[in-house]
């Protein structure tokens, strides 16, 4: 992603620059037209998202394989996740995507107030998502379900010892070797949601920066590529969650 500020610093501007035709100030010297510049940067963003898909792809592959191998463990481990929190978070994230899309529209139609409002809302919703995620993580911590840190299979070899989950699902006890594979589920749970959360944190930091820039009027002068591309990133992070939510929380809950 390119930051549109300080365009003039890095790239050498020559005497030829002065002879150029009238350009908008945000047009970089090496592009012929604004259209070309927008096209190129958008295309670059899509390509970057493609690399992100491949990046997450490795984790999804691992999930797919181990889910097939250790199916009973994955089913019972997924019972430990609370659908309420997951659904809530999904709603929060989809809403934030909506506010982000509205932000892009506001930038395009040059409504500075609306843009700032939308960015702030997106920012807050992103924080809410991370907050809910923290609650979920701390719950795992308390139940010793964080892999690698005093992991306990108690809830799976003896489901009755975990009454809250037991009264809802009546899980059968797993044999020790299968129960130990629930740790793999939580490995993947933490790796995938953690990697997703890291992307959220990066997104929120950029949003914070954008709010200040938007207040200064940087995105409401007709040059909206940055907002647009950030929007693409934000939606992408959203879509990753849209896959994580069913894979980790929903599928095969009732056996």
């Amino acid at each position, binding site marked *: 992603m390119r930051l549109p500020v300080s365009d003039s610093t890095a790239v050498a501007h020559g005497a030829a620059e002065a002879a150029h035709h009238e350009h908008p100030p945000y047009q970089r010297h090496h592009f012929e037209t604004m259209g070309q510049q927008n096209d190129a940067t958008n295309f670059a963003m899509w390509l970057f998202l493609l690399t992100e898909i491949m990046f997450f792809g490795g984790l999804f*592959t691992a999930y797919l394989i181990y889910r097939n191998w250790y199916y009973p463990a994955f089913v019972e481990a997924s019972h430990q996740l609370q659908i309420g929190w997951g659904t809530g978070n999904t709603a929060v994230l989809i809403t934030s995507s909506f506010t982000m899309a509205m932000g892009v529209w506001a930038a395009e139609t040059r409504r500075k107030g609306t843009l700032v409002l939308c960015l702030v809302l997106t920012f807050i919703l992103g924080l809410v998502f991370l907050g809910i995620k923290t609650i979920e993580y701390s719950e795992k911590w308390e139940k010793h379900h964080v892999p690698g840190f005093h992991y306990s299979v108690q809830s799976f070899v003896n489901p009755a010892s975990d009454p809250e989950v037991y009264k809802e699902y009546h899980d059968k006890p797993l044999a020790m070797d299968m129960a130990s594979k629930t740790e793999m589920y939580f490995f993947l749970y933490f790796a995938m949601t953690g990697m997703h959360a890291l992307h959220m944190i990066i997104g929120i930091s950029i949003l914070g920066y954008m709010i200040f820039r938007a207040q200064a009027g940087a995105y409401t002068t007709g040059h909206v590529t940055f907002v647009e591309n950030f929007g693409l990133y934000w939606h992408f992070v959203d879509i990753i969650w849209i896959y994580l939510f069913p894979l980790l929380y929903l599928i095969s809950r009732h056996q």
Partner: protein
Amino acid sequence: MSDAATIVSLPDQSTARIPKMNFLSKENGLLSWLLTGDHKRIAILYLISITFFFFIGGALAGLIRLELLTPQSDLVATDTYNKLFSMHGLIMVFFFLVPSVPATIGNFCIPMMVGAKDLALPKINLLSWYLYMAAGIMMIYTMSAGGVDTGWTFTTPLSTHYVNTHVITTGLAVFIAGFSSIFTGLNFIVTIHKMRAPGMTWFRLPLFVWSNYAASILMVLGTPVLAITLVLIVLERTVGIGVFDPAKGGDPLLFQHLFWFYSHPAVYIMILPGMGVISEVVSTFSRKRVFGYTAVAFSSVAIAVFGFFVWAHHMFIMGISNYAVLIFSLLTMLVAVPSAIKIFNWAFTLYKGSITFETPMLYAFGFMGLFTIGGMTGVFLGASGTDIHLTETYFIVAHFHFVMVGGMLMAFLSGVHFWWPKMTGRMYPEKISQLAAVVTFIGFNLTFFPQFILGTLGMPRRYASYPPEFQILNVFSTAGASVLGVGYLLPVLYLTWSLKYGAIAGNNPWQATGLEWQVQSPPLTENFPEIPIVDHEAYDYEWLERQKENEVASVG
């Protein structure tokens, strides 16, 4: 070969001058380089840094060969030897071969070849160099802190459980270097799609651009998979995540799949840009359009596509299913087809061409012969039966060194000599560089050909000692490595010399047709005084003749 047989046409040396305004003279001072957005300056930054890492990797190779001079492990301790070949592999693969041609010559030439003022994303380009340097500094730190001994492949569970060396910093260094490579590839793809000059259609692009495009696709799609794999390795070592740990239900074979899903295409990231160089050089020095332009262009893309579906041929002895072996063996054979298309088309380009033997062409001939041997022995290894016999022996070491060193390094040197006059405005000294090319070729064969024989005799790779009957061939190999070392040192010396004392090259010393040759050397920061309008095919030497006639007519 007589002196008359040359296409080099230099301006009158008594009056010729390097143009006052050019990208090198435009701004001065260290900061103007460290904050530059100019693709040509970034290319030069890359050229200097990858040369530095090449010589570190080369020094390590020298130590390896010196240790193997005698059957006993006597020069270094065996675990030091493990570190030597691991660091050699890591540095050469991630810090030399992957960025070699794309980040230097590609960076320098692609915008000019497509008729653009710069790459689409100049800051991302600079960022990619900084990432490369950050990764490189981490790598040097790792080396000085004691190095890593997993081999360049990070094989699990060795890397996660059994070694006590610096796997984490190495993994992070390669992770960062990976992003540098992703950004280079991304920039190339965007530039080639969106920045072409008017009239520059896809099938008018020089083949160098096509091959870099194909390599960029591999960089963009493959490297992130390596990145996540390395993240998992680092997480396994730091917090004990068990995705590759059998004790926790993980599967080390999954690591192999993920690693080779990148690292096999990486082989094509390394070789494809080199093939692009050869296309340019062969056409220029036989004064003919590349035979079967479209076939060569598509064969690059075909290599990129097939390259994604052959990774498991690195795993034939790792216990994957027999059917998988069958399929991957077949797919591996398929990659030989587009590679052969290239070799045949270069051969047909030479046929009835007016061939001259300047240094880039000598290196290109070296490439064609050595790459062919490297490629053909690849077919031995792709066939599962022979692979089971030959894998993990010196045969495989010889095979990939024929492709990587005999192929890519030759292509890189060919390209550096070919575009040197464009980069610096001065010619390299012809005679001594021809000598260097020949020395490299001889040294290379002396080093690596005996290793094929050693491999078939059963000498395993990655051991510091070997049975005494293998010594004679190892002595040949070590002697060859010394010759090869001289062959690589020579260009550094005379190219540096030529910066000050080389003959003034003029715009187009080779009478080549590419757009980059139609502008001054070294070029302006903006490359072109005005964006060119392209009305001719690539490698159209008649167009070039007409251009020259027009020039003469207008002067007269």
